[in-house]
Every structure is written in C-alpha cells, then in structure tokens.
C-alpha cells in the first residue's frame, strides 16, 4: 500500500490507472488516473485524462481535469488545460493553467492560513492599486483641470482680481448662458446645409460666427471644417486631352 508507483519517463500507459497508494508519473499516460494517495507528475510527465488523488503536484503537462482531495500544486513548468478542483490550489509563477479553478472542500486547519495568504497576495493589492489611487486621482485631476481651464478664461475678463472666490463662483454662471448662445448658430448652420445650396450658402455662415462671440466660436468652427472636408468628393481630374481628341486625331490621320 505504501509502495510508490512510478511510470517511468520511457513508458506510455494508454488506459486507466487507479487504486491505492501514491503515483509518480514521469512518462505518458493517456487515460484517467485516480489514486487514493498523492500524484506527482514530473517535468517529463504527460497526462491526457483526468487526474484525481489526495495531493497533486504537477510539473508536467496535463490535459484533463485535476481533482485533489487535499491539494493541487502546479509547479513552475506545469501546464494544465482543464478544470482544477481542490480545497487548496497553488499555481506557481511560470505555471500555465487554462480552465476553471475551484477551491472547494474542507481545507485542513493547518492548511487554512496558507490558503488565505495566496488569496491576500492576489486580491488586495490589485483592487487597492486600481480603485484607491487610480480612480480618485484620475477623477480629481480632470475635474481640477477642467475647473482651472474654465476659471482661467473667465478670470481675465473678470475686472476684480482681488476677489478670486466670487469671480470663480460667477465664472460657472457665465459659461452657462454663453453655451446656449453657441447652440443658436448651430441650427442656423444646419439650415443652409439642408437645402444643399450652392457654395454661396456655405461662405455666409463662417463669417457670422467669427465676429460674434469669441470663446465659443473657435470651438465650433473647427468642428465644421473637419466634418465637411472628408465628405467632399475628390476634385475632378481634368484629362490633359479632351474627350474625343484622340478620335479626331485618328480621323485626321485617316
């Protein structure tokens, strides 16, 4: 019972392996492996089938599900394609695992802390790093920038440099009314576009925005320019020779 079975590196087993005791696989097994003891799959081990045992230590390749009643340990060179089910699952850096991993069952009292530590390593750092520093900073930064950007243009027009706070408070109020103003020119511009009028209709809209409100116009002008440019069909290529010129030449030769 206590004897350790070995499937050597030069051995291929095509069939199922089950029973008592521990098993070390250094060769190839094409079939299910199910033992009551531990299973060690060496770096040269290749298993194509489901593997179940008390503790699975894997350094080789497994294509199939792993089920360890005590633990499943994937060592550095392990490569597993299949589901892993065990109360304790360890995947070392460098190991490759593809499949569903489930840490179920009754972990031993001594094993519990080990299970907690890997979880703590993986879980807390990631959320902390992503949630705490990234989002708040990112949110605060753009807002601050936006506020500053809004405040700067409005500050110069504000005649009172002494009272900055009131000016800032007034600043947001001013842009609000200013925004509807730019909205008005939009419909005007759209109207000329609908009739698909000749180029004459296009030139009139640009001049009015320029002399009108200074800050909102520049923002809209580029938008207009960008949109129509790509829509324009390519300029016609005028052939060097007019249509029928060659025919005329031929006729003249004849």
């Amino acid at each position: 019972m206590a004897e350790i079975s070995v499937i050597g590196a030069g051995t291929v087993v095509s069939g199922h392996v089950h029973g008592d005791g521990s098993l070390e696989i250094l060769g190839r097994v094409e079939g299910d492996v199910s033992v009551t003891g531990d299973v060690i799959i060496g770096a040269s081990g290749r298993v194509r089938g489901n593997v179940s045992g008390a503790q699975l230590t894997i350094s080789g390749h497994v294509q199939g599900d792993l089920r360890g009643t005590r633990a499943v340990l994937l060592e550095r060179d392990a490569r597993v394609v299949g589901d892993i089910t065990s109360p304790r699952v360890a995947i070392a850096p460098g190991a490759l695992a593809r499949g569903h991993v489930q840490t179920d069952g009754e972990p031993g009292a001594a094993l519990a802390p080990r299970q907690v530590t890997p979880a703590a390593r993986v879980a807390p750092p990631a959320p902390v790093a992503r949630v705490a520093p990234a989002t708040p900073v990112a949110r605060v930064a753009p807002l601050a920038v936006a506020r500053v950007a809004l405040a700067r243009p409005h500050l110069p027009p504000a005649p009172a440099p002494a009272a900055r706070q009131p000016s800032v408070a007034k600043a947001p109020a001013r842009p609000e009314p200013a925004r509807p103003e730019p909205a008005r020119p939009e419909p005007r511009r759209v109207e000329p576009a609908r009739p698909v009028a000749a180029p004459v209709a296009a030139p009139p809209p640009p001049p009015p925005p320029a002399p009108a409100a200074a800050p909102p116009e520049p923002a809209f002008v580029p938008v207009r320019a960008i949109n129509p440019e790509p829509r324009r069909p390519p300029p016609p290529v005028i052939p060097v020779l007019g249509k029928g010129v060659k025919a005329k030449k031929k006729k003249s030769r004849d």
Partner: protein
Amino acid sequence: MAGTVIGEGLVVEGDITGDEEIVINGTLRGRLTTSDAVTVGGTAVVGADITGASLSVAGQVIGDVTASERVDIQAGGKLVGDIKAARFTIADGASFKGNVDMED
C-alpha cells in the same frame, strides 16, 4: 531503480508501452510491451500479453509471453499462457500451463 513500477494496490487497465524496466506489483489488465526486463512481483496479478527482453514471474500472469532473452517463473509464481523465449526456467513450486517455444 526500475523505470516503471506499478505498486501494490494500483490497477492499470490498458496498455503499457516503454523502453525501460517495468516492475509490476499491482494489477495490470491489457498489454505490456517493453524493450527491457519485466518483473512481476509476488503480489501482482497480470492479465496481459507480455513482450520484453526478459520476464521474471513471482506472481500471477495470464497471457502470452514473448521474451527476446529469457523467462523465469519463480517459486510461488503462476503463469498461464504460451511462452516464446530462447531460455525458460520453471522453479520448483511454480505453476505453469501453456505451450513453450524455445526456438531461436
């Protein structure tokens, strides 16, 4: 140490193919092919055709055996099946039933 060991209590249902020594103390049902020695321990139960360089049987084997070198059935061993080997010994107390072909 042998290349492959099927320990007592372990059951292999299927074919074993290899190029190294194989020791069986458990149960094998299927086929066993190797280019090296095969040892069937006292606790083993083998229901398989065996092909190897040599075979030593202390347990129970049911199946045909082809060995390029020799076949030895130890005392307490049991073999049922045809044997094709250049050299073949049966120890006192061993059990054997089958045909023997010792032609080279």
